[in-house]
């Protein structure tokens, strides 16, 4: 952190003016607060990359302006104004050599810095917390291996939002269950592909608590455009609270309530694929979901503590309504943890999208759920199918889901 910021600040000073002039023309035309802006680094890894940008882009700008200026001058100066046909000279070798050596020198400077940054960004020995990230068409699963130093005593499985402590060196171990995806939170680091059968590593660190948006960056099939992610950096204390909440025991709804009826619907319809840790059937046997029997890629989001997340369906939809969403996204970093940990309350819930999703998920998100397309995948679905739930069931389910926090 310290070395990085020192290098950063010294280089900033030298390049500050250049960048200011050169980039201002472009930046003037840019959106403010674009959540995926690659030039707004919010963590040391992204800053390292941005420092390189600050070197390369000005060079490119300057070279570009010189070359294009020269070109314009030539276009104007040597226009046919009736001058004589020039003598047929074939060039000057010394000039050629100069024009070869100069770019080579410039590029070797760039090369040295590039070289160093590549290896800095590949460093993993300073890792403080490991999180496994698994891509699947079209959502991300996060699982936190047991790490007692962070209060994680049993594996936590979640999806949609990656929650991690700010100011901590996180190592993501990425993989995929089906096709290649790419994990990309522009404000925190460059992208790294999640390749099935391989584990790829990505350093992540946020300077401050906050919400950092990203998107799957490797084309991964039908709903690639709908595969988004949000990375939630919490202060260490808030993170500990979040961890504790994720591990707390399941409390079944009181018998006779709508929520209890909802639990029955859930067990009948959803528990085949979606795991809720601690959920037990009528005989008191734990229910283990078997998504591998229904979904080609073999997993479905774990819904334990669903209402602590702000999104669902691969972060395609918000689980909170617009007002509550704005509260979280707009919270200053010192207030952010508080706003986020509130979770989804009944009046904050995005009823419209959630209900529509339960009613007919394939209509909301293209995902090869049509039964006639399931031949090559042995009849297994590629996403959540149409379940033919009644409105009554949906009411009950929503009531039940609201208890999962």
């Amino acid at each position, binding site marked *: 952190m310290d070395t990085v910021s020192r290098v950063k600040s010294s280089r900033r000073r030298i390049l500050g003016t250049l960048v200011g002039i050169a980039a201002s023309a472009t930046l003037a035309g840019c959106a403010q607060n674009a959540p995926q802006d690659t030039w707004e680094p919010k963590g040391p890894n992204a800053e390292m990359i941005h420092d390189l940008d600050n070197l390369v882009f000005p060079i490119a700008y300057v070279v570009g302006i010189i070359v294009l200026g020269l070109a314009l001058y030539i276009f104007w100066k040597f226009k046919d104004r009736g001058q004589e046909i020039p003598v047929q000279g074939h060039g000057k070798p010394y000039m050629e050599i100069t024009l070869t050596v100069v770019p080579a020198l410039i590029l070797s400077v760039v090369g040295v810095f590039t070289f160093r940054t590549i290896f800095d960004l590949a460093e993993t020995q300073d890792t403080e917390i490991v999180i496994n990230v698994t891509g699947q068409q079209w959502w991300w699963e996060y699982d936190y*291996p047991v790490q007692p130093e962070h209060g994680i005593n049993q594996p936590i499985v979640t999806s949609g939002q990656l929650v991690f402590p700010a100011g901590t060196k996180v190592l993501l171990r990425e*993989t995929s269950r089906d096709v290649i995806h790419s994990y990309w939170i522009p404000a925190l680091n460059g992208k790294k592909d999640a390749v*099935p*059968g391989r584990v790829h590593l990505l350093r992540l660190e946020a300077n401050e608590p906050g919400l950092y948006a990203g998107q799957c960056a490797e084309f991964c099939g039908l709903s690639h455009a709908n595969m988004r992610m949000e990375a939630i950096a919490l202060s260490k204390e808030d993170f500990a609270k979040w961890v504790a909440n994720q591990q707390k025991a399941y409390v079944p709804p009181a018998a006779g309530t709508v929520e209890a009826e909802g639990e029955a619907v859930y067990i009948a319809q959803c528990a085949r694929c979606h795991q809720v840790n601690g959920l037990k059937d009528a005989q008191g046997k734990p229910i*283990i979901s078997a*998504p*591998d029997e229904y979904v080609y890629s073999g*997993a479905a989001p774990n819904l334990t503590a669903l209402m602590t997340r702000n999104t669902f369906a691969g972060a395609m939809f918000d689980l909170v309504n617009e007002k509550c969403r704005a509260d979280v996204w707009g919270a200053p970093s010192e207030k952010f943890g508080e706003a986020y940990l509130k979770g989804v309350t009944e009046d904050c819930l995005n009823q419209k999208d959630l209900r529509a999703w339960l009613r007919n998920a394939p209509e909301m998100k293209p995902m090869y759920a049509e039964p006639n397309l399931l031949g090559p995948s042995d009849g297994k679905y590629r996403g959540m199918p149409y379940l033919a739930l009644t409105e009554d069931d949906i009411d009950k389910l929503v009531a039940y889901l609201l208890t999962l926090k």
Partner: protein
Amino acid sequence: MFTTGSKYFIGLTALSVVATVLYLFLVNPSDLGALALVGLITSAATLSGVSIFTRDSDTETVEQAVDASAGPASASFWPIVVALGAAMVLLGLATEPVVFVLGIAVLVGGGVEWMVQGWSDRASANAAYNSEVRAKVLGGIEYPGLSAVLTIIVAFLFSRIFLAVSKDAATIFFMLVAAVIFALGFVFAARTDLRKKALSVVLPVSIALLAIAGVVSALSGERKQLVDAAREDHFAIEHRECGEEASKYYDKHANNRVPLRKAVIATITVENNEVSAKMIGLDRKVDTITIPRMNSTTVLFRNLDDSERRLVVNLGSAKVGDTDVVEPLGTCTQLTGKGQEQVLTLTIPKPATAEEPFSFTVPGANGEIKLVVP
């Protein structure tokens, strides 16, 4: 309207359509048969198309030419071939579809040859010219066709012989045959006077010998080891024995190199009789490996001890079919020697139960690596 040639091909097309229809209705259609006939229709139709569209000469002139040059046709053995084909087709209708298909092939081959010969015989009064016309039309098919047939027959018959005799006999036989061919080549190259005569004797005799040997071998079937191997399927995944001892088939000639070391999640090493594990990217030993559920994952196993070891993954147990017999689940690598590597690719659909946690073990070595599937 149509040139002479195109008429033949149109006729052939019609004939083959009829044959196809008959075949599809009368015989139990097999892929092979449909293949042959559809192929025939299409090629005949293509050829008719080509000959109609590419017609350059004036029709009348051609007709006149044909009239003018009508002469005695040369002797031909193609009718016999066609008759043979027809007989085979009839026989095939009654017996085996393969015979039917072969019959069709003979019929077509003979028929085309016959027609082209008949046509070229009347092309002009000049016999040399006529044979050139014939060659022009059929050269494109004859050379490669005959060559391919010859190649396939020779290769197929040899393979039957190799399959029928024992491994060693096959090797020795192969060596001898090659040596003989080569020796004959040198003899004939050196003794030009011998060549013509001897070649006309040696070639048919050896082909006949090969044919007899090949057919006999084909009929006698493959050697016992192969039949047994096919029946018992020694190397199938369900026959793996994952104990400390070497198993008869699975551990025979272990595979000890892993060329693709990049696509692995962790390396499990056994050294000084102790099992240890490292995750990719983290240079420290771990006692737990976490693999996401239903995620195809490969683990690299490296043996640094003198004794042969194997990596075993224990994935709980399950009932076998409908019986009450409970068998442990899991799989293992081959036994591997010092300094060698093996990989194990796993896809685990469900988390472990509390009673039967998953683990990696190395029989005969201490320690286990816990395997967590969240």
